[in-house]
């Protein structure tokens, strides 16, 4: 049986740059930083006191109080972004809901819920008084569960967890489930909401996060010589993936085709990237092979590029190995310079950015570039500081996660 073609028919996003796809894209195009002082808790004693929060967020804007109270923030973001994508794709009333799945990604799940319940227990006299919503709010799959319950989607439903590669893995899983005929439509993407005491403190302990507290907006600076770690972000990105024939039959608008996905593992260290970049070479090769295209078909790579000293260099080295001299003709950019790092939500919002780059013919920039890193080839086009115009036929979205998980997704302009 030939594999079915898969296309993107809907997009949704709630991000530090804006709470809709339109606002998110405007922020990316203009090169806006989403970083600022942390407001979700008092971070005055933390090494890092800033993050990329979703601005002006109130659950009451989106949920009635009873409904919102039963969802951790990462699930609220998941429902908000997927609602936008579902509306955008015009799914309501137009599809067989038994054939619609939800495959979501989250690296952590309900961290704030977990933290609050444990603190409440620790403050008591040892008598357990755990809230009945503790477990259903905390578990990472509550995101995909809530999306399906709200919409009545009865197809395949699960979550992928592979740290910062989680929502690229969910997109690849969605692609393959549709290709194989196990669903016609899948709501996919990912979300995270880890800007809590435990999240900031935990990442500070790994020494992975920027401590540029005197200038938060310029802290996420992938490929800059003075980068000092990632900036934590939060939010969600959602995509509706759909069998091509199914989308055509119902007259859906088609943003792009999902040409393929690649997976690999570093098999090296639980947090440090393999400095040789071999796992990252492998993942891009796997993705291109799965997409059935050569390196020279690619116009744009939305990199993992988290702004850590080690990771950025390893990824660039791998790109040069896979693409050879053609690497100089690529546009490369890390939108994490603007959004911060959404961990398990990164693949979702970056897939949305990659699809929009194809749709608009605009490459969003890598902002905050001041000083070239002598370790990185200056001949490469990192799309520093300003968006660039370019027809994008093929875009690759890379994400890599603690544990050594590597995932690349290949999106292409729809061809007949």
């Amino acid at each position, binding site marked *: 049986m030939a594999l079915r073609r898969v296309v993107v028919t809907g997009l949704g996003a709630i991000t530090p740059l804006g709470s809709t796809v339109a606002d998110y894209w405007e922020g990316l195009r203009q090169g806006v930083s989403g970083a600022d002082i942390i407001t979700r808790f008092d971070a005055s004693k933390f090494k890092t006191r800033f993050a990329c929060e979703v601005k002006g967020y109130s659950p009451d804007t989106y949920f009635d109080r009873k409904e919102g109270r039963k969802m951790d923030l990462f699930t609220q973001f998941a429902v908000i972004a997927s609602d936008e994508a579902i509306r955008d794709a015009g799914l309501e009333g137009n599809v067989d809901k038994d054939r619609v799945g939800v495959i979501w990604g989250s690296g952590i799940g309900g961290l704030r819920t977990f933290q609050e319940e444990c603190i409440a227990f620790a403050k008591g006299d040892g008598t357990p*008084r755990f809230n009945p919503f503790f477990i259903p709010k905390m578990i990472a799959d509550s995101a995909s569960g809530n999306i399906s319950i709200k919409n009545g989607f009865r197809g395949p439903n699960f979550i992928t967890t592979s740290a910062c590669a989680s929502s690229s893995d969910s997109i690849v899983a969605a692609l393959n489930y549709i290709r194989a005929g196990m669903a016609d439509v899948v709501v996919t993407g990912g979300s995270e909401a880890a800007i809590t005491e435990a999240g900031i403190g935990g990442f500070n302990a790994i020494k992975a996060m920027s401590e540029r507290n005197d200038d938060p907006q310029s802290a996420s600076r992938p490929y800059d010589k003075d980068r000092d770690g990632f900036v934590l972000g939060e939010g969600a990105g959602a995509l509706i993936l759909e069998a091509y024939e199914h989308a055509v039959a119902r007259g859906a608008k088609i943003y792009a085709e999902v040409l393929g996905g690649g997976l690999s593992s570093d098999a090296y260290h639980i947090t440090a990237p393999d400095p040789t970049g071999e796992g990252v070479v492998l993942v891009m090769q796997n993705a291109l092979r799965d997409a059935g295209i050569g390196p020279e078909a690619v116009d744009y790579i939305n990199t993992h590029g988290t702004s850590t000293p080690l990771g950025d260099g390893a990824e660039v080295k791998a790109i040069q190995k896979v693409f050879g001299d053609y690497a100089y003709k690529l546009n490369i950019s890390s939108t994490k310079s603007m959004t911060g790092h959404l961990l398990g939500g990164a693949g979702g919002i970056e897939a949305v950015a990659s699809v929009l780059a194809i749709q608009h013919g605009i490459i969003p920039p890598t902002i905050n570039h001041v000083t070239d890193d002598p370790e990185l080839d200056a001949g490469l086009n990192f799309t520093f500081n300003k968006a660039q115009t370019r027809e994008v036929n093929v875009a690759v979205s890379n994400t890599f996660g603690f544990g050594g998980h590597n995932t690349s997704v290949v999106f292409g302009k729809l061809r007949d």
Partner: protein
Amino acid sequence: MSEIAEKVKSIIVDKLGVEPSEVTPEASFTNDLGADSLDTVELIMEFEKEFNVSIPDDQAENIGTVGQAISYLEEHAK
């Protein structure tokens, strides 16, 4: 209405997101006020916390309406 009844009512309004006018003594948490099994557990826990009582599971099973909650708590609250 007793002080206890007022407190019970406000807890129910808060947790179940219903209108105060719906919270009549006869109203059933599950049939009339939209509570599911988890909501009911949470309500009992809130009553325990607010009124400083411990409601055993076998007695909690018999608290299904607003009126039943009020009379149980009027009898047992410290």
